[in-house]
Each structure stands twice: as structure tokens, then as C-alpha cells.
């Protein structure tokens, strides 16, 4: 019984560690700031959720009562990760940081910076 629980906890830990590592690799490998935003907001959030889940299982079994306060951190990070990404994207737009040459929608950068509606795309509505 103990062996199985240890195996489950170890699996979650490894999954979480791998995801956090991938998030950081993305931070270095991806070519421009806007794409770099994607890796930490997603991979790292899931990574930490996995590690906290492992901690929940471990302490629940160890103390005999359900230990759920780790979920508070998960919840907090789930709420704050998009806000952080959004704020960084906002400042990047404000500072006119260029997207990668081959990315689509370069014409949207200027209206986005001024928080205006896109001009030539009106027919979509």
C-alpha cells in the first residue's frame, strides 16, 4: 500500500518537475518576447500544480486527514498567472517591442498599442 502511494507521489513529482523544466527551456528557446510569454504561464503553472498535488497526497496519507491547503497556492497561481502574462504583454506593447518577422498580424500592433479598434478588419463582425 505504502509502496503504491509513494509511486503515485513520485510520478506526480516527476511530471511537475519535467513541466517546470520545459517551461524554463521554453523561456530560453522561444524566439521573441511574445512567444516567450507562453511557456511560463502554462507549463510552469501546471508543473507547480502537479508538485502541490503530490504534496497533498503525501501529507493526507501521512497525517491521516485530508490536507488541502496546498490547493490555495494552486488556486492563487491559476488566478495570477494570466494577469501577470497580460501585464507583461501590455508593457511590451507599450514599449513597442517588435514581434518576430514572420509572425502574422503585424498590422495589429499599432492599434493594440493605442487600445483602439483594428481599422481594416471591421468586416469580421
Amino acid at each position, binding site marked *: 500500500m505504502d509502496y503504491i502511494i509513494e509511486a503515485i507521489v513520485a510520478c506526480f513529482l516527476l511530471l511537475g518537475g519535467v*513541466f517546470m523544466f*520545459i*517551461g524554463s*527551456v*521554453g523561456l530560453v*528557446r*522561444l*524566439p*521573441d518576447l*511574445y*512567444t516567450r*510569454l*507562453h*511557456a511560463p*504561464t*502554462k*507549463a510552469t*503553472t*501546471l508543473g507547480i500544480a502537479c508538485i502541490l498535488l503530490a504534496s497533498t497526497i503525501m501529507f493526507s496519507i501521512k497525517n491521516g486527514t485530508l*490536507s*488541502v*491547503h496546498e*490547493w*490555495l497556492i494552486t488556486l492563487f497561481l*491559476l*488566478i495570477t*498567472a*494570466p*494577469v501577470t*502574462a*497580460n501585464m507583461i*504583454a*501590455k508593457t*511590451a*506593447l507599450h514599449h513597442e517591442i517588435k*514581434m*518576430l518577422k*514572420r*509572425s*502574422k*498580424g*503585424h498590422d*495589429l*500592433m499599432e*492599434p*493594440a*498599442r493605442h*487600445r*483602439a*479598434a*483594428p481599422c481594416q*478588419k471591421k468586416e*469580421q*463582425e
Partner: protein
Amino acid sequence: MTQRKGKSRFLPMPIHSLLLFVVWLLLNNTLAFGHIVLGAFLAITIPMLVTSLAPEQPSIKKPGLAFRYFMLVMWDILTANFEVARKVLSPMNKLSPGMVAVPLDIKSELGITLFASTISLTPGTVSAEISEDKQWLYVHALDIDDEQALIDEMKQRYEAPLKEILGC
């Protein structure tokens, strides 16, 4: 403190009260009777004290649908991560990132916030900026094949249920 019409005196902010209660119990990691009483006391008094600061209260019209939406988002976060992980580890020159403008149908601020947060957490998209008139959301995507398909998918997968849940 003035109470507006149509608001319960006892629980002016039901969602906030529930959240405060749950967070108190989570923080103390217990279900002891004393903490339940204290948590309930805090959950009732704090909203009463701060209710005059927050003008409009959001309301959930369809709790069942809200729960289904939550599960959908959780599932999408999980799949999003495998997708992003695959893209991070594959060669970079195959990537075609880009910016798209999504027309917004939701009008309430809470709805827009939830929509923007959801698309930031789910497959390959990060919301970057919103236009001043709250009509357009600028979204950066990690890998675009077809802009219109991406916009349509976001709109019908996340915005439509959110609109129904919040009833606006």
C-alpha cells in the same frame, strides 16, 4: 452604510462570502468546529463592511453550467500544456506566431476578465490588450494556421458559455 435595493442585508456579496469562508478553512487546513464558526463570522462581516466600496455585484445565473465550464477549462489547461511542451521542444523555425483581434460579445467587466484569463491559460494563446471601447481583445497566439478558425474556436468554446453563465 447604505444598502441598495434588491440586495440581501445579511449576505450582500454571496460569492465573496463563500470564497472567504473556503479560503479561511483552506488556510487553516482544518474542519474543526471553532474554525467553521470563525470563518462564517468573517465571511459574513467582511462583505458587510466593504459592500459600499464595490458598486456592482456579479451574479452566476447557471451554477451547473459554471461547473461544467470550470471542468472544461481545467481539461483544456491540461491538454494545452502538452501541446505547448511539444511546441517548445520541436524546432523553432516551424513556429508561426502572430497577433489576432477577437471581437468581444461579452459586455460586463467580469465576463471580459474571465474570458481573457481563460484564453491566457489555454492552448497557445495569451491575451495582450483590450481596446478602449471594450469591443476587441488582442490575443497573441503561439502557432496560427488560420486566424479566423482560431477566433471562432475561442469565441464558441469559451465566450458563449461564459455569456450564458453570467447572463449578459
